[in-house]
């Protein structure tokens, strides 16, 4: 667990739909985060379960949890158990693949989610690290380290001078305090993904201001949801 002191609700929580905090609740959270990052209507989805999840997703209802998250249903919402029916009614097709072999650097409970819709695609790799806690480790090929426990702003930008300064100034200008920020690029001069975790609510005006910064391609607010 984290270095922060543990609280009552680290023990007495999360509130969740069973059976498993890591294989059910955590998967719903990863999918929920993917939906927030995609930030648009999803027309097709594919999920690949690795490792322990590949072997046990049927019995843990990880498929229901995943589809629930994509539909915006949180791990403590009893509609989670009916998510497959809800998705069918909404014509959302989710393909599920079990991959028993997995790359060594993957966490033992890993899911890769690929979303498409409106001419856009998103590919995230998430790890369910225990007790419902999750880590998004890769977003569209960029390394990331997103927990979803704090509000976050994701900024896709060209790797050029001044972008980071612009983003921090825009957030500060809207009263948003930065808890943690990390920029990940594939190679020098290429595109980069800036992941900023913040303490405060992010107003939509702050996102609009970030998107006006020279060099920024797009920005999205990923709200925190604990359970």
């Amino acid at each position, binding site marked *: 667990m984290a270095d922060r002191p543990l609280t009552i609700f680290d*023990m007495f929580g999360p509130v969740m739909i069973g059976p498993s905090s890591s294989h059910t609740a955590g998967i719903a959270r990863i999918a929920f985060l993917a939906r927030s990052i995609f930030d648009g209507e999803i027309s097709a989805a594919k999920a690949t379960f690795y490792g322990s999840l590949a*072997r046990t997703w049927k*019995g*843990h209802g990880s498929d229901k949890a995943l589809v629930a998250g994509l539909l915006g249903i949180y791990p403590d919402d009893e509609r989670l158990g009916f998510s497959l029916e809800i998705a069918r009614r909404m014509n959302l097709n989710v393909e599920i693949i079990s991959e028993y072999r997995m790359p060594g650097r993957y966490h033992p409970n890993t899911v890769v989610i690929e979303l498409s819709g409106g001419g856009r695609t998103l590919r995230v790799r998430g790890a369910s690290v225990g007790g419902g806690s999750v880590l998004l480790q890769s977003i569209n090929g960029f390394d990331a380290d997103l927990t979803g426990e704090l509000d976050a702003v994701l900024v896709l930008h060209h790797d050029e001078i001044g972008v980071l300064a612009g983003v921090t100034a825009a957030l500060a200008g809207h009263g948003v305090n930065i808890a943690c920020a990390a920029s990940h690029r594939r190679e020098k001069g290429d595109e980069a993904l800036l992941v900023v975790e913040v303490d405060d609510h992010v107003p939509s005006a702050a996102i609009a201001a970030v998107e006006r910064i020279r060099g920024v391609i797009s920005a999205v607010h990923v709200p925190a949801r604990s359970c």
Partner: protein
Amino acid sequence: MNTRFSSAAELLALVAESGLHLPAFMLERDSFLTGKSVAETHEELFRRMAITRQSLQRGLSERQSSFSGMTGGNAILASASADPPVRDGFFNKAVAYSLAVNEVSACGGKVVAFPTGGSCGIVPGVLWAWHDERETGEPFRSDRMAEAFLCASAVGIVIATKATLSGAAGGCQAECGAASAMAAGALSWLMRRDAGSVFNAAALALKNSLGLACDPVAGLVEVPCVKRNAFMAVAAITAASLDAAGIRSYIPFDEVVEAMRSIGESMPSSLRESAEGGLAMTPTGKTCADRVR
């Protein structure tokens, strides 16, 4: 406020220094750590307690089945048992209640992990059984019940800080074993209102589950987990009984947790939630795994 402790001894020193009792200290500490008011924290505690009560009612009234078909309906059987060998309402309710809450989890219903999903029936099972048999006049939202849930959390925080609460890391001693220690501590608080006794009862309970394998059939949180919730509820009651009689754990709580950590590290991975050993590898277990994969 000093909120950091890495052992029960340090926690008890902080509690003594604060002038508060143990559950009040835990509540103040949480409020300090999260920035939420004590009243808000208390309300969130009541909200989660109410969810455990709903899980319990559901598990006792609805015949359920898990996705695998291995789990369901046993809480109803337990609560309707015509001639149980022990004729004590508290004991029999603790058995049925802990099964009920954990069955709801295994069958995809709404629960509160405490400390994990696989062990979520033990603390609420013991505490609500106590409430329903011994404190029937108290409302569900009583301060006394809240104190008990807070004491259980305090025990869990010490175990998580010094060792682990993950079956994959430490075997079942870290999940159902920890929950049993938490329930024992909470029950001791209800009887004695003494912080030292909370950790004495917890030590007695935790010693009883050292080395326990986590060998779930088909890798699912069902067999042996659900029925083990009932066994661990009884172990918690036994520990609280010893504590109430003035019996001390020869090994203090912090050292028991240290032993638990060291045993967990030396357990083979086949007995740490990998479904590659123990009950998971029995012929029946393997047949089930083939069926649900």
